[in-house]
């Protein structure tokens, strides 16, 4: 038995006879297609750092597709730009955000490495956000995607605190937690997440972990794969190729 399951069972035992059947996932059920079989898939994403050119199209497309507020501080996916200089100082910012005072141009001989890192919800296999949600509004589907039931979420923001990757925000209009869903409404129709579709360099690869022949299967065979913050044991399902150790 895994530790998490053990904890879960323990909780059930302690509260024996407690309230039953509360954990149905309404939102998910309503968007599910009839011919779609959740048990046949298990989704993940691959990102090749070397391919990303920081054009930010994925950010734009995601905001449009998923009604993410236009304000410059709500993102389901964003792209970070790293510049590591010869003296080992690191500059990071999020592209398209006129925030932090970061010089735009560095003299070439001072730059050791420079690259872009797309970020999004890692759809963790052991998601702390699901563990902490007091009402079960954040949940994991059978195909491995973490969703938020916006009809149940009470807006306590515990999940935002618990996510180590800053992937969640509180939607200012609906007042509930929101984050990347891998475009679940598209997946059930057999489409790709919109960020994957618009990427001009195919830096993002979407796939099914249950099929070795999927693009993701090939991606992980061809590259050395890393995930973010592995020490936290959240087991992310967003896999990076050519990831630099500076990225966290």
């Amino acid at each position: 038995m895994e530790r998490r399951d053990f904890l879960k069972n323990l909780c059930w035992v302690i509260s024996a006879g407690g309230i039953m059947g509360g954990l149905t996932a309404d939102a998910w059920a309503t968007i599910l297609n009839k011919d779609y079989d959740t048990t046949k898939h298990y989704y993940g994403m691959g990102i090749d750092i070397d391919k990303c050119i920081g054009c930010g199209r994925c950010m734009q497309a995601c905001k449009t597709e998923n009604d993410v507020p236009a304000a410059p501080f709500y993102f389901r996916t964003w792209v970070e730009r790293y510049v590591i200089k010869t003296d080992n100082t690191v500059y990071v910012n999020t592209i398209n955000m006129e925030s932090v005072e970061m010089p735009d141009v560095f003299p070439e001989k001072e730059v050791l490495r420079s690259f872009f890192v797309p970020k999004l919800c890692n759809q963790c296999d052991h998601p702390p956000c699901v563990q902490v949600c007091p009402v079960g509004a954040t949940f994991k589907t059978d195909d491995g995607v973490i969703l938020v039931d916006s009809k149940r979420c009470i807006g306590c923001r515990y999940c935002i605190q618990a996510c180590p990757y800053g992937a969640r925000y509180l939607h200012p209009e609906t007042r509930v937690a929101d984050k990347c869903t891998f475009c679940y409404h598209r997946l059930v129709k057999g489409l790709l997440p919109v960020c994957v579709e618009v990427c001009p360099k195919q830096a993002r690869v979407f796939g099914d972990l249950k099929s070795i022949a999927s693009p993701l299967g090939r991606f992980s065979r061809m590259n050395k794969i890393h995930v973010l913050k592995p020490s936290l044991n959240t087991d992310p399902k967003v896999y990076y190729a050519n990831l630099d150790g500076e990225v966290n």
Partner: protein
Amino acid sequence: MEAVQRFTELSRQVMGFIYPNEIDIQWSILIVVYPYITGLVAGAFILASLVKVFNVKELQPTYRLAMLTALAFMLIAPLPLQLHLGRPERSYEMFMTPNLTSAMAMFGFVYLWYLMLVLLLEIYFEYRRDMIVWSSETTGLRKWLLKLLSLFSTDISEKAVAFDKKTVKVITIIGIPSAFLLHGYVGFIFGSIKANPWWSSVMMPVVFLFSAIVSGIAMVMLLYMIVKPLLGGKIDMKCLDKVASFLFYAVIVDFSIEVLDFIHRLYESEESIKILSQLVSTKLFMSLVVLQILLGMLLPLFVLAVIKILKLQEEVRKLLYFVCGLLIQLGIFSTRWNVVIGGQLFSKSFRGLTTYKMEMMGIEGFLVALVLLIIPFVILSILLKLLPPWKKEELTGN
């Protein structure tokens, strides 16, 4: 557009790199108020239980006051949480479909247990006889209120009163672990967030608990010094000295645990050490170093120690106790602030610090928090009217 303006304003105060979703702080001043209030409840209750369980005779005059204080604050405790929710109208879901792996889901149950089974029951049995007697002495609304509160019981035979006494004792014994649970649990909510190195610590519940005890004792001490003279009584110096000396020891224990926890956290953190020390030396310097540690702990500790050694005059002692009580409240409030707000000021990228701008008027703003901190005193004054903590003889000093 307002949002964009707010963003530009905030982003100017951000240091280094933070994840873009992190510019807004999620848990505001209301979440600072919440552990502060529950801390007072737990602390006041533990002071009261010193009388009932451990038979500390000198503290007897504070017993009922402490219980009523605990109740007044307990009644308000869920309000800051409720007001803070994005969708407060759904909060009942926490009872209907609690997710059993979530620490927060237990809130309602822990709360109800403590309020219903401990505080209300204990106060009921403590006051039952008096309520019956008082209701026969007065008329009108008060009479009926007292009758209702005593649940229309009429038995004041020796046997019944003896039963009350015993029951109070039993409830207190159950109450002590419950008080520990109530506040330790609040610490657990923070301590179990492993994504946040400022919070993630097994010591968190213990730290919360001991600071709760400190704040509760200090609050009851302050109230005792204010309320008793107001009701025409005289401050019992033996009692006050005893409360102060318990306070002194509690502060010492609390201080050592906090220091230990703090050092341990800094010592153990690896990738976060840089950002945490930056946090402490910049954004939290005032509230952590100055308010919490220097003014809220070391100074009162020093003063209380001086009082103990020097055998000062009564009037001077009273004054100093009062100042210490206030300083300690300030310190404990800062403690809560530093945990809750401090833990959100650094980015989980460990590369930058964000900032918290408290709203004035908004529902999660300063004014609401202030009102939430005042209401318990209003409730307490009503409770004191209805259920006087001291008998007439005690007030006139015989």
